[in-house]
């Protein structure tokens, strides 16, 4: 049973971590990170069967998660730290020289919890499908989860992967799109509209769930559980998760401007004033 109260508390602290990490080196992507806090917290604190204390690359008999839109690394790093993959104090090294917390997630420095590099967009769905196929070969019941930006769906490789997974009945994967409608250059509809996204995934042969409250923890937990119940039935599963870029910091919401910009000192103080310190700052 999901402990929503605890997860809300974690979510607030994760949001503080995100704005502090991005502010500390004046670079990074706060907007998408803030918008995906509930997804990550629900995943790591309720949904995933995972072993944070003893991270293993192969993850046999564990559920696996792949972040395809690697630029929202701050939310992932923070949630990994709060889940026990590594010390929270290491969040202070984000994007700094000799850090394991690279600007975009990487495996080379051996950061626990990361199984593939991502950043160049469009690659994570293929990786997830590959990992899901290996789980089938290994006769595992575990699932594979992936997260993608909506702008990322403009990459052609996504649709190669979409076609493959449906044609080959890869039904042990749950992909989620962070459907916030914004990308660096503006609104997705203005940059390159995705059109009828639900219809597209359905036409590609996926089971599609649409959740309009992607920043409501209970809603996110529920849709992920619903997605789990749809696995193993011959179709890959897609969740279109409506979120608000910049969620939790008022001046970062309702715009694409905070996709990849860091707050200054004053803006940081403003943001922290809106976010309760629940578990202690790193």
């Amino acid at each position, binding site marked *: 049973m999901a402990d929503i109260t605890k997860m809300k508390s974690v979510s607030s602290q994760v949001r503080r971590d995100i704005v502090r990490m991005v502010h500390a080196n004046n670079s990074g992507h706060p907007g998408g990170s803030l918008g995906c806090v509930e997804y990550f917290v629900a995943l790591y604190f309720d949904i995933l069967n995972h072993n944070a204390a003893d991270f293993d690359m*192969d993850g046999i008999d564990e559920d696996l998660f792949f972040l395809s839109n690697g630029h929202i690394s701050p939310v992932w790093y923070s949630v990994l730290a709060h889940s026990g993959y590594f010390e929270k104090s290491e969040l202070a090294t984000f994007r700094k020289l000799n850090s394991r917390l690279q600007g975009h997630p990487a*495996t080379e420095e051996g950061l626990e919890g990361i199984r*593939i*590099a991502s950043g160049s967009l*469009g*690659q994570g769905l293929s990786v*997830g499908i590959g990992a899901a196929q*290996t789980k089938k070969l290994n006769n595992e019941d575990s699932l594979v989860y992936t997260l993608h930006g909506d702008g990322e769906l403009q990459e052609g490789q996504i649709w190669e992967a979409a076609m*493959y997974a449906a044609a080959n009945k890869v039904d042990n994967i749950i992909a989620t799109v962070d459907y916030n409608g914004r990308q660096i250059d503006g609104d997705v509809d203005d940059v390159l509209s995705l059109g009828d996204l639900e219809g597209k995934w359905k036409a590609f042969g996926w089971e599609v769930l649409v959740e309009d409250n992607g920043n409501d923890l209970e809603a996110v937990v529920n849709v992920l559980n619903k997605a789990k119940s749809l696995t193993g039935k011959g179709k890959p599963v897609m969740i279109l998760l409506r979120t608000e870029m910049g969620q939790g910091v008022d001046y970062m919401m309702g715009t694409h401007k905070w996709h990849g910009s860091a707050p200054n000192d004053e803006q940081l103080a403003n943001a922290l004033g809106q976010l309760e310190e629940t578990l202690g700052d790193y």
Partner: protein
Amino acid sequence: MKEYPVLGTKDTRSGFGDGLLELGRTNENVVAMCADLTGSLKMNAFQDEFPERFFQAGIAEANMIGMAAGMTIGGKIPFTGTFANFSTSRVYDQVRQSIAYSEKNVKICASHAGLTLGEDGATHQVLEDLGMMKMLPNMCVINPCDYNQTKAATIAIADYEGPVYLRFGRPKVPIFMPEDMPFEIGKGILLNEGTDVTIVATGHLVWKALEAAKELEAKGISAEVINIHTIKPLDEEIILNSVMKTKCVVTAEEHQIAGGLGESVSSLLCRTIPTPQEFVAVDDTFGESGTPDELMTKYGLDAVDIISACEAVIKRK
């Protein structure tokens, strides 16, 4: 001059196909993936015998490369198969991020490399692949010379932990390496000892280098011939030992000069013992349609070209 009897002729891609089939029988973690070129890559036998370990990706190479990276998580050893062009330039970013940077145990197996692909023309005749792949950190780059060596290399790379690019070709070429010779990654092979010039060759040019050495011998020139099947990591020792003796070198490959084996050798020598060098390789041009033999002649990749390069480089000593 040491004799290398021709044991037959076969395409190097068949060495890959037969090696892969053997791996299927001996290593249950080996899986194979192909982008709609199963017959061309000679992967049918593996597909027929191990259908549950064969993954048809369709004409979607980027997805195939990403899936291969993912399949390593959980212990599988994916061998991807498509033409060399579609294994490299088509999917360079996927190879770079999902495989090389992510240190994934994928074997990228690439057929129809170079001009000897023939009539299909320049769209398919990749001559830049060795350069692209050797520039990637963590990537091992292998270009065997005949059927036997390609089969042995295919089997050997399954036991090597890390990303590998294995390049082979389409045409039937002489088989002259011993069938039972084990393949040692990163270890060049001294095929013929000589004193006047060193020929460092890779892939289809190795046999031509032996032919050239034979004719040079008749002209009174003693050529040392080294088979460099592993472009990266380069066997520096075998090259340096030879060049210290001969004082000049000719490199020979079915690739652009830029980025090829010749540049790797140059880079080594200029840092250690600067040595006159001539390049037998394609000089900054695309290929075209034609038979493999016609193309190798037109673009200067025949034994006669190696001979002239040797004569030229000896004069520069």
